[in-house]
């Protein structure tokens, strides 16, 4: 295979990895009936958690754990407001994004910088070559010499698919998103399912932020997710709320982003502003073409309180 093609594919995988983790988390939340508009904030919280945890303890393992925890905390906030108090899910998600943007900036300066704006650097995670497989020519270096969170992003789709489609718990989770009253009638507690799903999804989304910090740039800067959470949200819709489809959508978005750079590298006579729009234009086109025919979880966005409580 041509090395330019390999480089392009490697870039696609790198760009898609944080999107994939964010989107997998979003699927869990949306399937349970809670819009994942807060993905951007959960991701940013995860990035902050990864940077702060690693910087303060020197351990990337603690950094990863902390990114999961910070993501989950944002999930908990969204769950309390949107599920327990039945606030509008769109507004709650957007508010969570704004809250996290401000809070991470504040904590960076207040807690880590003691009033100043600190510069923090963290070590990057080394690639973990898979014994045997990494020696395969071409594909080996592309697929089997990746850092750990990249493997996680790709392989997480399989258990998630199995969970959603084949497990009893997954069935109940989908029921909470399709018809919570029916789920309640068979003894499940839709409000509880939604709460747990939102928190668990947010924890996984937080890992998407950890990828940016621990596998890509090794530092935290304000708003560093730069809209990736919203791109992940679009990928979920394009991928029809299923793990494999969403993974494919993330890879397509990653490829479009990589393409934007390569069009410039190859010197094609197109304005960079036009090229930069490509991934978003693609997302819009796909949404316009498929959006309507897709069946989104029927009860998504519809508040469902715990009948025993109210």
């Amino acid at each position: 295979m041509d090395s330019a093609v390999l480089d392009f594919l490697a870039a696609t995988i790198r760009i898609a990895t944080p999107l994939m983790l964010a989107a997998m988390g979003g699927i869990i939340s949306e399937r349970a009936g809670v819009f994942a508009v807060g993905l951007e904030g959960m991701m940013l919280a995860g990035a902050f958690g990864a940077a702060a945890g690693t910087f303060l303890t020197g351990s990337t393992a603690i950094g990863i754990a902390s990114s999961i925890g910070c993501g989950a905390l944002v999930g908990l906030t969204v769950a309390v407001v949107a599920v327990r108090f039945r606030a509008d899910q769109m507004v709650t998600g957007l508010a969570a994004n704004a809250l996290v943007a401000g809070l991470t900036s504040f904590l960076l300066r207040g807690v880590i910088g003691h009033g100043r704006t600190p510069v923090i650097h963290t070590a990057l995670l080394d690639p973990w070559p898979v014994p045997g497989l990494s020696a395969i020519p071409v594909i080996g270096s592309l697929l089997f010499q990746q850092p750990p969170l990249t493997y996680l992003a790709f392989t997480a789709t399989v258990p998630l698919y199995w969970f959603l489609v084949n497990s009893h718990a997954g069935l109940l989770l989908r029921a909470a998103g399709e018809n919570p009253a029916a789920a309640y009638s068979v003894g499940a507690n839709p409000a509880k399912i939604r709460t747990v799903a939102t928190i668990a999804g947010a924890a996984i989304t937080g890992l998407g932020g950890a990828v940016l910090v621990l596998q890509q740039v090794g530092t935290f800067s304000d708003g560093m997710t730069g809209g990736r959470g919203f791109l992940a949200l679009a990928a979920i819709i394009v991928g029809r709320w299923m793990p494999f489809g969403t993974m494919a959508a993330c890879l397509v978005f990653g490829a479009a982003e990589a393409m934007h750079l390569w069009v410039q590298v190859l010197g094609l006579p197109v304005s960079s502003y036009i090229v930069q729009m490509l991934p978003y234009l693609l997302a819009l086109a796909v949404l316009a073409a498929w959006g309507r025919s897709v069946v989104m979880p029927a009860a998504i966005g519809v508040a469902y309180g715990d009948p025993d409580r109210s």
Partner: protein
Amino acid sequence: MIGTSQRRCKTTWCSWAFVALAVAITLAASSSSAADYKAALLLPGSINDQSWNADGYAGLTKIKELGFETAYTENVDAADHVDAMRDYARRGFNIIIGHSGRFLTAEERVGAEFPNVQFITAAGSAGFGKNVSSIDFNNRHFACLIGYLAAKMSKTGKIGGVYGLEGLPTTIDHVGSFRICAKKARPNIQVTVLYISDMEDAASAKEAAFSLIAAGADVVAGQLNAAQTGLIQAAKEKNVFVTGRSYGQTAISPENVLTNIIEKWPEMYAAAAEDVKAGKLSGAFRVYGLDTPDATGAALGYLPDVPYNKAVPASVIAELDDVKQQIASGAIKIEPTREDARGGR
């Protein structure tokens, strides 16, 4: 019923009066303790970026040393430019600095409303009226040196640069001069320029650098904010040369950073602040460069007092010094066009 509601009204009235009193006392207290001169800085990003915004903050610190009371706001979005400026102007600030050419339009607008306040756009491109000025280091001069250095240090004959804000006058100056002087150093050099949409997004800058390196570039330059770190990280991982914007970036990868454009915003801001103290407002566009020896606006620096990485041969340094002199004397004139600053090859 009526009595109760009246009493409630009175209570509300009382509490509002109390709040107003409290505010008045606070205001009086703060204004009596305030310095005679106040300067505010608006930044497009965050001051920990080891790059553009950090430079601006260093400039404000210098102004503070001159006896000004100072304040700053980070991460000011385009939609908030005007409001943020008006707010500082109403609160009696004498100098309001927008630390990016992006603030120029808002400064022009708000400047007309507050004729006694000095508005300054860093890296702006024009002055307006009597109180809206722009100052900048000469992008042409220093980007030229970087282009020359990059071309001389390349073994593959291919170099690249990653930039943002395509089409802005300062960007055209910077990127165009980088390309022109690289060609001056080596006529057959291949220069590839990438524009990215977000000067603060380090992950996407890193990808941009990777794609340049994959296409054969072995020296990567750039002029980004927080995203500059992404360039340095990419160069470190792929072991190619890179140029940065602060000594802190040398520290990230001492082997790979050739030099940094160290911008002297403290020097430039201090000069402007002294003028305001002397009662002089300015509506001019001032550019500091190699041809203004008292204040050059910027300098190349690897570490304080060390201009270049030790990998740069003495012969190249001698050539660079020669180029510097010719720029200073006017023997070399760099006049970049939009075409020189184009994205791609």
